[in-house]
């Protein structure tokens, strides 16, 4: 027997949710529950060894404000984001445009592969490789600087509080650059040739075509890359752990490594969860803002 009328429609409407129920439960349990639980944990003081949990309200958030390492970490994440946008978004865009501007299909494939190779190397291997580049005694970088007569520039790049985080960021650019270039190359390939032909007929040179054709027609990819880069920069963890573990003297801490140190090194999971909450808020705000921006400026051919 079939239900009819408004009631039947409502029932069918409700029943239609069964197709997504499993996905909703999985998503709720593995994504949304941990987020809510993280906020709950951040209001507690928890001793992992004894299992004692004390509710302390917003004290962990108050402590965040007065913790100088949190501010250092925030700055480092911010620097990571800005430098990554410059190199992995705009730099990668320029490189992709140059590669896609080549006439030979073979040359295009070759250069795409060349730039993509670093992205295929594991971070542990990259970390070790760059440790030997930055090492003060036998490192390639300092040897090169000495060779060029730039002795005053020689320094222990990972051991100097002023340069450690930037040395890590530089390594990260080297590794992530090729991946972004490949994505931009795909976006550029999707632009119909007619637009370029029309621009050439109008007398536009390569730079004008790049600025007035390629750049606006890849803005959706640019927007997406900015979101991915900024959220990635605020969630960075492996690179710092492998290279300096946040040192020297916490100068290269980012929010992710400081969270880890608080939870697993200092046995303070409540404070670690409060730091995780900050990361969540920052990345969610960035992601939402970017999504709204790119939705308004959708590209359709």
């Amino acid at each position, binding site marked *: 027997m079939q239900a009819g009328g408004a009631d039947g429609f409502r029932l069918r409407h409700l029943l239609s949710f069964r197709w997504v129920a499993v996905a909703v439960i999985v998503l709720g349990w593995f994504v949304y529950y941990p987020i809510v639980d993280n906020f709950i944990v951040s209001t507690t003081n928890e001793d992992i060894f004894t299992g004692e949990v004390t509710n302390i309200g917003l004290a962990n958030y108050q402590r965040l404000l007065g913790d100088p390492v949190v501010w250092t970490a925030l700055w480092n994440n911010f620097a990571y984001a800005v430098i990554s946008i410059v190199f992995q978004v705009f730099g990668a865009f320029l490189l992709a445009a140059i590669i896609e501007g080549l006439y030979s299909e073979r040359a295009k494939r070759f250069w795409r592969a060349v730039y993509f190779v670093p992205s295929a190397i594991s971070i542990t291997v990259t970390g070790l490789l760059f440790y030997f580049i930055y090492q003060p005694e036998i490192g390639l970088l300092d040897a090169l600087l000495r060779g060029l007569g730039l002795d005053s520039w020689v320094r*222990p790049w990972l051991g100097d509080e002023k340069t450690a985080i930037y040395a890590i960021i530089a390594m990260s650019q080297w590794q992530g650059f090729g991946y972004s270039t490949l994505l931009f190359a795909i976006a550029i390939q999707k632009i119909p040739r007619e637009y370029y032909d029309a621009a050439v007929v109008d007398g536009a040179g390569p730079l004008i075509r790049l600025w007035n054709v390629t750049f606006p027609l890849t803005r959706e990819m640019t927007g997406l890359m900015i979101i991915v880069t900024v959220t990635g920069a605020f969630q960075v963890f492996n690179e710092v752990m492998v290279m300096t573990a946040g040192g020297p003297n916490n100068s290269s801490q980012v929010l992710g490594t400081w969270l880890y140190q608080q939870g697993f090194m200092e046995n303070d999971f409540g404070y670690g969860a409060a730091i995780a909450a900050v990361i969540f808020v920052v990345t969610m705000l960035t992601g939402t803002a970017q999504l709204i921006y790119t939705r308004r400026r959708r590209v359709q051919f």
Partner: protein
Amino acid sequence: MKHALKTATLAVTAASALTLSAGSGWSASDVTADPNAKVDYNGTVTVLTKFGLQVLQPFFVNIAQEYEKLHPGVKVELTQESDDSVKDKTKALVASNTLTDVYFSWTGSWGYNFVRGHRAVDLTPVIGPDTDWGKTLVPAAVEAFKYNGKDYGIPLYLDAKFMGYNKAIFQKLGIAVPQTLEDLEAACDTIKKAGITPISLGNKEAWPVVHYAGQLLAYNVPRATLEQDFDPKTAKFDDPGYVAALQQYKDLSDHCIDGASVNGTSYASAFQQFGNGKSAMYYQEIIEFDQSTAADGGLKQSDFGFFVLPAPKDAKGDTKAVEGAPEGYMINTASKNIPLAIDFMKFVTSKEHGQVLSAPPYGQPSATVGGASEDKMSPAVVQGLVVLKGASYLMPWLDTANSARTANAWLSSLQALAGGTMTPAEVMDKVKEASKAEAK
């Protein structure tokens, strides 16, 4: 990078949830080993070791195989971590209530964490001084794992810090073994003039300079004050010896160490520099002696010598103290088969296995009586044990003797001291601040 942080964040929350639910049998109550318990030789024994280094790994692997051969119903599952990773691994296992049946532990505050969390079996009835097993172990080593009057640890080997030196370089430059810190600084000046790095030091991991500081603190701060300051509830850190000791490190660094590069160099790289004969000295643990003179290096076993980091002339503390401590294992109270876990550790600490452990390539001086067999060990390790026996006090490692937050303040601030961005007084302010916060 995103994935790893998500994993870490989820681990924090998941670990918290699991702590609340206490899912794997751990309960907040004491468990005491039963000396009359019958061992059921069936099931699995999980073991977390600190022998993750390639050269050390075979020790436990071979013992596990022997034990499984003797008891076909038993499977030994090993998780072998390195010195750097074992702390994080242990805490992750504790937080998720998945700690192994047998796990590595240092002495001091680190070990006490397991005791106050009721995660370590009280072994007094089976390892106490009057027991059969207890009589086979070095009493002072068992004593080092005593908390609240009870024995909780199974010491496996003895460890201490010494200055390893290249006898050939010393001889060539006419340098005698330094008797005071001032002598050592003068020796460094001579070595430096000869174009050789006096002491190689890698402090990228932050704890190597903490070890220098530990030995110097023992020379400058009375033992009672040090021990009072290990506990945040009684800590004051106001003894002038603290700043004096750190100033001595600075002076030593100025004469002997390339201060600018230490934080950018790993412990392993600096160790290799010494092993390759490129530096004259290296501050190392006795358990690393045999690795200094590995066959492929430039330093021959006959050229390897060592001395205790000498005390300054005007030292106010204990000049006979040596920094070091035994290292060992504890039994998890949540283990399903505690008698089997204990039996496995009795097997590990047998005299025969002690002799294997003490001899090259492992070179870890066994804590089993008769385990440190002189005819099988390297001469340097034998001599190291003699010095260790004559020590008036074994100064524990600062980063395991202090509780977590204070320990991390030591680590990060001493990295700043080594890099020249903090003064000794500023380091002590940071340590005091962390200890006060921890006491609250």
